[in-house]
């Protein structure tokens, strides 16, 4: 089984308010051989598509308005479908966040909301490929408490940078 054969069976949802970024990500995923690519321009639309299409992976931007990628992830983890029937497909779906904010505070926020992996901008082909492959090929480890279900909020989440982190 090659990576391409695996990718051909994937359905990936891109959520980003930048049309340009959505197009670039979609083109890169297409060149990886991903079988189905969905895209949404907002967190709200992303949540709707997640509930109706049951993607295998979500790739989301962090900063969006009014619903950002952090809230989107939290709602996915909580099984909050906009149709209100509580019948969300897979609330443990891997979520990759791509963000220009690579400071510890935002990375911690992503982790606490249930983001699986964090990629710093600018995105590079090899980093995207590597993180998508890791997200879909590694077993999913979930912590469940009364108030939270998702990847361990105590784990150390480090942004994957294609270049050295930018000084802020």
């Amino acid at each position, binding site marked *: *089984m*090659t*990576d*391409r054969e*695996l*990718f051909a*069976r*994937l359905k990936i949802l891109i959520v980003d308010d*930048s049309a*340009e*970024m959505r197009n*670039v990500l979609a*083109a*890169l995923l*297409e*060149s*990886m*051989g991903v079988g189905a690519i969905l895209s949404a321009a907002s967190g709200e639309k992303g949540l709707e598509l997640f509930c109706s299409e049951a993607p*295998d*992976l979500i790739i989301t931007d962090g*900063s969006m308005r009014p619903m950002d990628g952090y809230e989107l992830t939290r709602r996915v983890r909580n099984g909050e479908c906009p149709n209100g029937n509580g019948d969300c497909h897979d609330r*443990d779906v*891997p979520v990759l966040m*791509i963000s*220009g904010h690579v400071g510890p505070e935002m990375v911690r926020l992503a982790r606490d909301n249930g983001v699986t992996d964090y990629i710093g*901008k*600018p*995105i*590079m*082909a*090899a980093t*995207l*490929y*590597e993180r998508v*492959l*890791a*997200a*879909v*090929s*590694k*077993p*999913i*480890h*979930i*912590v*469940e*408490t009364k108030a939270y279900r998702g990847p361990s909020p105590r784990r150390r989440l480090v942004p994957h940078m*294609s*270049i050295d982190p*930018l*000084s*802020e």
Partner: protein
Amino acid sequence: MNDAQTPDVPARFLRLPSVAERKLGPDFTAPVRLDPRVLDQMQDTIRELTVKYSENLKVQVGSLFSFIEPTAAGDAEARNQLYSTAHEIRGLAGTFGYPTVGRFAHSLCAYLENYKSVVSTVMRFHVEAMYDALQGRGADDILASDTLASLDRLIALSHDGERSAG
């Protein structure tokens, strides 16, 4: 045992099969290295998109100049436009071979995020640095780092004694 008798377990740890295991069966083993053919295909895609992106980036950087004065005067819409354009540049310039332009865009975004009241000189210097880097001037890493340090000093001087909003 009903709920009242259930011991209060603080956390449950679950190991769920990967997406690949679910689709391809439990015998799936994760590849140990990236497939160079897939990477080549992705690089080809980036090369194809670069020409169009380069043209678009010139337009984007040029458009930033027009938002500077209204933003400094407190025009919220201009500020939103300035930020969202710089944010787009930050996200993609590096992908298409303009990492220095992306670094200056990142610095401009951070400035707009951290200060409620912003100064036109600081914004103009950022945009001019982006413009120069786009023309190939000042795109060298060391020079770019020096320029960023200068911009930081300019911000500190312009906002002497003022706390950042961030």
